[in-house]
């Protein structure tokens, strides 16, 4: 028993070392910009760089619209599949997994061919159109995470009975989704939203090939030309992602406790 515990700690320590050593090394390296002393110079340079602010702001905005689009597509779809079309669930799950299988570069080349300036839907002819296409692409990339998060949330409530209870009280579909379903899966939606945020902030391929001033291409550009700043940027990006994950954990504590028995 004692030996089992010992080996469990050894495995844990190895796992922790695998995770933390590169992180600590990166932090340490990012602070060695000033010769002979540790400093936050690299961070100051990165955070003070107008291109950092512009690209980060662009990606945050893109993430915001991606989340809105994702919620508008996924919540009604996942709800309807649970309520009326449960037989379609395996097919929809398969479709939502496709972005994990098809490389982003294939998708973006498809977009360029489909929506180029000579196509009937010339998204790429204007900046606004390209931005919209990027957001649509991001929503698709985030689909596996958003759909699973929402579907898991819906599993914790008795969707059919709650829907019927609201219907018999006179509610229409808008009220049912807005006042009954969405608030009860809000934490799941937020989980999906933060995962989407994390994906969008670091995404490179689509933004680069669509020539958008996003944070991912900026990260790549800085990484290729500087020494200490990329390490600082990596830590900042990591902190943002980790912050998102922590928010999911914190918010999940405020989830409405279901008093309904599952189906």
């Amino acid at each position, binding site marked *: 028993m004692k030996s089992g515990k010992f080996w469990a700690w050894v495995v844990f320590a190895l796992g922790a070392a695998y995770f933390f050593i590169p992180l600590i090394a990166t932090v340490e390296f990012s602070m060695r910009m000033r010769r002979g002393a540790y400093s936050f110079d690299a961070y100051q340079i990165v955070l003070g760089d107008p291109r950092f602010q512009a690209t980060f702001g662009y990606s945050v905005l893109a993430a915001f619209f991606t989340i809105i689009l994702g919620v508008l597509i996924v919540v009604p779809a996942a709800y309807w599949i649970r309520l009326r079309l449960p037989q379609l669930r395996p097919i929809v799950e398969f479709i939502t997994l496709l972005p994990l299988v098809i490389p982003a570069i294939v998708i973006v080349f498809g977009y360029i061919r489909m929506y180029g300036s000579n196509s009937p839907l010339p998204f790429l002819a204007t900046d606004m159109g390209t931005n919209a296409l990027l957001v649509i692409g991001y929503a698709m990339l985030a689909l596996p995470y958003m759909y699973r998060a929402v579907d898991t949330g819906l599993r914790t*409530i*008795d969707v059919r*009975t*709650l829907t*019927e*209870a*609201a*219907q*018999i*009280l*006179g*509610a*229409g579909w808008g*009220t049912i989704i807005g*006042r*009954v379903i969405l*608030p*009860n899966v809000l934490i799941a939606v937020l989980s999906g939203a933060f995962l989407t945020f994390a994906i969008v902030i670091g995404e490179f391929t689509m933004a680069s090939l669509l020539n958008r001033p996003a944070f991912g291409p900026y990260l790549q550009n800085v990484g290729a030309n500087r020494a200490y700043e990329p390490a600082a940027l990596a830590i900042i990006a990591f902190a943002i992602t980790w912050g998102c994950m922590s928010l999911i954990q914190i918010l999940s504590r405020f989830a*409405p*406790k*279901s*008093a*309904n*028995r599952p189906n």
Partner: protein
Amino acid sequence: MADPFLSIQHVRKSFGATTVVEDFNLDVEPGEFVSFLGPSGCGKTTVLRMVAGFEEPSAGKIVVAGKDITRLKPNQRNVGMVFQAYALFPNLTVAQNIGFGLKVAGMPRADIDARVAEMLGIIKLPQMADRYPYQLSGGQQQRIALARAIAPKPKLLLLDEPLSALDAKVRVSLREEIRSIQKKLGITTIFVTHDQEEALSISDRIAVMYGGKAEQVGTPFEIYNRPATKFVANFVGTLNVLEGTVTDAASGTVRVNSQEVALKGKLNGSKSGDTLSLALRPEAISLGRQPGRDSSLSGEISEVHFLGSVIRVRVGIGGNTVSLDTFNNSATPPPAVGEKAEISFSSGDMLVLH
């Protein structure tokens, strides 16, 4: 006679090739409390769901207060419903749950608050307004669900096995409370249950359902004492069924295990030589000859169960077994297994089943 408030006319419901409700007919008077009683799968919940609008009948129509509502959506019917699984909205407080239907209907805030307070008073939970459903017991949740259903003053109240998820004690007190609130508000109510005691104790009328059809519709007294079919007789209450042969159709005499019983013309057209199923409720039978009981059968005691205040005795009469209860009497020892025994009853209490 005035028009019924709710009229279910020749309703049928099929799911693919399976027909779950067949030619169901029922008229319910205003303010009446009618229970649908039957085993699982008999179609009682399907009929209720068709009245609510969650299922569309394959044939037939449903009329409420003279208006055909068969094709109306659930949110257009002005019907209240209480579900077995409570179905309170977990994200809303008790007050918000009760006020949900009123808010959807666009009632002013002050009126909603007043109605919610009135409802909380009716269900005797005035202090629970700010609680969330997960902070309430099952019985409290179901009372809130009832308050939520009746708050918008629906024309019709539907109760889909609302007591099945509760423990026995709460079930009894809540069913009395439901009945008392229903009487007070005078709301026409349909109550679905598989529990015969529940149905018998609170209903004005009961529709006993089996195989998608109403086997019998009647008052609890009629259903219990004059079951129209063998299924109703077996399903409602405990029943002793004896096989007998008609020996003299003209005088209404039946032979049970070579003993004759005179049924006084209750044979419903059976001919001499026909085999009949005869039923007797345990409370209609006495052990030994009793004054006022005109019929008797002899047999042998096969089982004796001492239950405290009563003693349950089973008497074998040929191939039939009759169960009866006698009160415990400390001065008299209970009968012994193997003893010869005579049971007596009034021939009028013996039912001929079809």
